[in-house]
């Protein structure tokens, strides 16, 4: 069955994420960060940051509310049960710190088929409360047996 490519270019509702200090600390501990700017407010301030600093890969946390819905969009006819995460790219702008409010908009960048696999590429653009782009994500999901 060929993949349905009609949704290429579709953009979804922006999702807002309020970055909490304890959430950053929880994430930083789970990924084994040892740099105290991710764990300790005094250390972060002493290093010149406004608050506890989100590790760059915390982008997966603040982007999540925006990148979830496209995967489950019935218009894509994406067989979620056969999906694997094939690749990921992030491009970062200014750092995110606790207290920031991040708005992320997701879109369908590409849908294609190769060797019986469907390639679904989503893009997320995240901006902070000052309108600065803090992250652009490219999420490549591969669906086997299309």
């Amino acid at each position, binding site marked *: 069955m060929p993949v349905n490519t009609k949704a290429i270019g579709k953009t979804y509702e922006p999702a807002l994420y309020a970055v909490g200090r304890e959430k950053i600390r929880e994430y930083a*501990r*789970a990924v*084994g960060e040892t*740099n105290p700017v991710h764990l300790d407010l005094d250390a972060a301030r002493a290093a010149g940051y406004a608050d506890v600093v989100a*590790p*760059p*890969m915390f982008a997966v946390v603040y982007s999540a509310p925006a990148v979830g819905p496209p995967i489950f969009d019935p218009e894509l006819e994406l067989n979620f049960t056969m999906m694997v995460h094939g*690749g990921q790219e992030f*491009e*970062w702008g200014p750092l995110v710190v606790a207290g920031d409010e991040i708005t992320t908009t997701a879109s369908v960048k590409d849908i294609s088929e190769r060797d019986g696999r469907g390639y679904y590429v989503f893009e997320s653009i995240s901006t902070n409360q000052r309108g600065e782009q803090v992250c652009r994500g490219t999420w490549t999901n591969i669906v086997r047996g299309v």
Partner: protein
Amino acid sequence: MANLEAGSKIPEVRVTPDKYLTARYAGASGDFNPIHIDEEFARAVGLPGRILHGLWTMAQVARAQTEAAGAPERLKRLKVQFRGMGLPEQEVVVSGTVREVADGRAIVDTVAEQSGNQIIRNAEAELAL
């Protein structure tokens, strides 16, 4: 900052995810896909057992870059391909080599391996010097 000249290796990151790491990462990230946290479910869908979150492993690749560069804001871009699957309670080794340095940016080629299998390959990082 580590020595970031073309051809130099960045310091390795070695980490052994403990038995409960995938549960902690699920809570921290919000990704509760049962293939990561439910042994029976994972086996029922043909996996050897619970597998690591690819994005946790990518975070180890990112950590190798920010530790080499000396600060989180120096990591400007990171692109990875996920291959195979990572398993709890086995050491993950992240190693990278600076491919080129130009215009104040270093490009670092990186892999994450577990028991000799590459679970992240062709990772490309861009660091501000």
